[in-house]
């Protein structure tokens, strides 16, 4: 299967702004499924609402574009009804941790075999630049004209605390790293949460003095460091990247199959 066979070409060019990081993630995702040689009919994508959720329209998988925040809940039903499907769930930061926060922590706890990708641009892009639970204090947004006073979540810590069995982080600058982490996340049995910091030059960068796409990506390069690296050791204030947890634990669909076996005894 060639790379291009995994996309619905007639819908390009995509709707994202010039410089948006979402296309980079889409590209990495397509390379990952191509590398793994996965059949398209085994692939499924369930998304919510927001810029990130539009990824679902561009991949030639079974695609379900659902409601704001509800992607993981819909995906849970889909996966349980047909466990053989490989289910990707791309979400934005507001989608995953604000309106969908409850579904997010419970999907982590349940350890159901879904690949959750949080595209964290720290802003509500589709509605025009409001602050999200990932924006953090001091951020300027259309709903925080005097700067945000809201403390942010740390998605990695949230996922770890909620019991996710695979948790990783990277950025839109680290293109090859997205591919390798996505591949590991996909192959992980159980819930995998991959946070990808993606730039929103239109609503975040411009308003918060981070410049355009290139400058924002340079920040990802300079302000992050791999876990266990000398760079991180020397400067612990940097944002760590890499795999924070990869544990083998009973997966929900498999456990449910055991429930069925017990019930039928």
């Amino acid at each position, binding site marked *: 299967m060639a790379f291009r066979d995994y996309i619905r070409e007639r*819908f390009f060019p995509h709707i994202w702004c010039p410089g948006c990081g979402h296309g980079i993630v889409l590209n990495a995702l397509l390379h990952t499924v191509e590398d793994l040689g996965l059949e*398209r*009919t*085994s692939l*499924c994508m*369930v998304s919510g609402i927001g810029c990130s959720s539009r990824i*679902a*329209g561009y991949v*030639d*998988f*079974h*695609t*379900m*574009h*659902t*409601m704001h925040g*509800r992607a993981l*809940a*819909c*995906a*849970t*039903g*889909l*996966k*349980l*009804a*047909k466990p*053989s*499907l490989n289910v990707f769930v791309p979400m934005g930061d507001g989608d995953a941790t604000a309106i969908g926060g*409850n*579904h997010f922590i*419970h999907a982590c706890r349940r350890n159901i075999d879904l690949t959750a990708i949080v595209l964290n641009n720290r802003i509500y892009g589709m509605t025009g630049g409001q602050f999200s639970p990932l924006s953090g204090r001091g951020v300027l947004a259309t709903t925080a004209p005097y700067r945000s006073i809201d403390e942010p979540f740390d998605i990695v810590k949230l996922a770890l605390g909620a019991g996710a069995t695979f948790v990783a982080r990277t950025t839109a600058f680290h293109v090859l790293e997205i591919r390798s982490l996505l591949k590991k996340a996909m192959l992980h049995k159980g819930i995998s949460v991959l946070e990808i910091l993606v730039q929103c030059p239109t609503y975040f960068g411009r308003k918060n003095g981070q410049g355009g796409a290139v400058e924002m990506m340079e920040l990802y390069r300079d302000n992050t460091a791999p876990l266990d690296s000398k760079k991180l050791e020397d400067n612990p204030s940097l944002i760590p990247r890499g795999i924070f947890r990869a544990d083998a634990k009973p997966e929900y669909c498999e456990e*449910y199959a055991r*429930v*069925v076996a*017990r*019930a*039928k005894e």
Partner: protein
Amino acid sequence: MSGAVASPPPAGGAGGAKRGAVAPDAHFVQGNEACVRGAMYAGLNFFAGYPITPSTEIAEHLADILPRNGGVFIQMEDEIASMCAVCGAALAGAKAMTATSGPGFSLKQEAIGYACMTEIPCVIVNVQRGGPSTGLPTKVAQGDVMQSRWGTHGDHSIVVLTASSVQDIFEITIEGFNISETYRTPVILLFDEVVGHMREKLVVPAPGEIAVVDRLYTEVKAGVNYHPYLPREDGRLPVSDFGGVHRYNVTGLFHDIFGFPTENADQVSRLIYHLVDKIENRAHLLARWKEYHLDDAEHIILSYGASARSARHLAETRRGKGDRIGLLELQTLWPFPAALVREKTAHAKSVFVAEMNMGQIAAQVKQAVNKPDRVFLVNRMDGMLVTPTDIGAVMRTVEGRGF
């Protein structure tokens, strides 16, 4: 329940069994359990829910029964997630259901709208309790009639069925699944605390005795363009499951025949008319009802759910005294069977609508009949089942015979 014509009641009523003669497949169960058995008869294989009074027994029974039959039971993190999981499972080919009450029904409205828009077949049970808000969790009400019709935002249409006995709950549940599969629409089973919790006899028919409608699959072969949202001439949409040979898009946005978002005014208009017409234009086919003593009735009581039991009690008692009272019991509430109501009540002097709300169906009846000023509401919203005496008192007053 086959066809649109209500069958006349058997002589002596449903409970007229001879002493000593009990069918071997008879059970003594709650309405909520009858709903579970009806759902299993209809082929239910996926349930997602969240505990809430007075519908919880449905989840409890299914937690036991579904795994034994290889089906999926999942208790989700909230009411919203339950309805979402049902949507996801149905796309993967499951016959899926959720059950809730009161506040839970409010929370499910978003995803019910999604199911309407994406034409996902599914069944939502609402065992009504007193509202608004937390209301009266363990007491009866019928206040969700309009919410079941208009609870989700935007123009849409939906099918809402109800029942007044344990046996009827079993049968109407199967009917709900059949309608849901036939028209690819969410169907709401709007029960109430009284019928959900009371126990009476249920006779489960042999498999095959009641027809079960299965999903209509597309005959389009792999590699040939499949249009998931191109209705056939009969309004039905042949489906292809997620995981099957056809990959397509499902979205809550207005979409084209491929399922991809569109803002094309013509396509938007066509879709909204399709969603509404596929149900509203079939109101006569979707009407389910029961009628008692209507032929020469001077006064007709129109009722549904638990209230219809009180109405029947009164009608039978007063018939015994020679009064020409009839009962029209609706089992389909939405699409509202206006033509049926108009026709059946055409020769009545007055119509009494007995329901446990502020007149949600009474308002529909007034719109349907030729003499709306002869439609009277008999209601009760204090958590108690409206009684035959309550109905009788209003009738006496209207008839000019004092309270």
